[in-house]
């Protein structure tokens, strides 16, 4: 499997993702935002960080960068795209995923581990979570409060396009287990074709038992098996 990690000025989780990809023997290339072509890849990753210093809106300027046209083409051709944190914000600004990510409800930057329920395991990113669907991953964001109108939310629920929801350690999805005020406790969503996943938590940070867990590794393992 081949992957490309897009690097923007201000990306800061690009190397973490690269290390994760390397661990699972996925052949990766870093791609600078000014490139006009993508190397041949099965998977494109938009990493976390603060692309362009979050100017104007988070992910906004990155969504207009040169390489994004290639990423959109890759998506149209059915290629896999994973957007993590700022990458999720960029996917939304690009229009590849619906909704918007507002500032956290309590206006605070959140950096902690949260429990997640894997709601949809029937996609190439998440099928490895079949045996373990309540997981723990770190979040680190200021704008992760997913918001969409009722029509969009209904569509996401009805078509089973929500990949992850914030929950507590028992899997209960409610207000108390919602760290940032996201509608329906949404932490990650898929597009209709299910080849694009955007998520606020950072799976690339939990790929090694020495670093407190492997819950994030399952995404990379799932992707490997899908090809």
């Amino acid at each position, binding site marked *: 499997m081949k992957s490309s990690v897009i690097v923007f000025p201000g990306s800061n989780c690009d190397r973490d993702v690269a290390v994760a990809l390397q661990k699972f023997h996925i052949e990766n290339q870093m791609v600078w935002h000014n490139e006009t072509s993508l190397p041949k890849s099965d998977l494109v990753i938009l990493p976390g960080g603060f692309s*362009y*210093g979050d*100017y*104007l809106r988070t992910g906004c*300027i990155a969504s*207009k*960068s040169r390489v994004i046209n290639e990423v959109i083409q890759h998506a149209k051709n059915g290629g896999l795209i994973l957007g993590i944190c700022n990458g999720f914000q960029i996917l939304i600004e690009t229009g590849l995923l619906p909704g918007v990510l507002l500032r956290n409800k309590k206006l605070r930057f959140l950096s902690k581990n949260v429990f997640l329920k894997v709601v949809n395991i029937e996609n190439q990113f998440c099928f490895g979570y079949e045996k373990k669907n309540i997981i723990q991953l770190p979040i680190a964001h200021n704008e992760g409060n997913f918001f969409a109108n009722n029509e969009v939310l209904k569509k996401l629920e009805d078509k089973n396009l929500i990949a992850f929801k914030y929950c507590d350690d028992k899997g209960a999805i409610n207000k108390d287990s919602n760290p940032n005020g996201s509608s329906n406790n949404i932490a990650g969503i898929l597009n209709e074709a299910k080849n694009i996943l955007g998520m606020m938590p950072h799976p690339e940070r939990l790929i090694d038992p020495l670093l407190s867990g492997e819950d994030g590794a399952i995404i990379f393992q799932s992707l490997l098996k899908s090809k």
Partner: protein
Amino acid sequence: MKISATVTLKKDVLDPQGKVVNQTLKNMGYDNIVSVRQGKYFEIELNETDKNKAKKIVEEISKKLLTNIVIEDYTISFE
């Protein structure tokens, strides 16, 4: 009465955010854009019918709170 205040960086102060927006617009193909400056816009509703008094109040709060007069300018307009 409703009054709006626009706060922008002074001409000589570097506005990196405006510059990035300007460059992005150029990349998107808008060649005729010369420059972009980013600022803040406030809509203030007052319990006041006298235009002059209202203006004075908004000028005062613009100086005291809304702007840092070392680097920013403000303009006030009535609706």
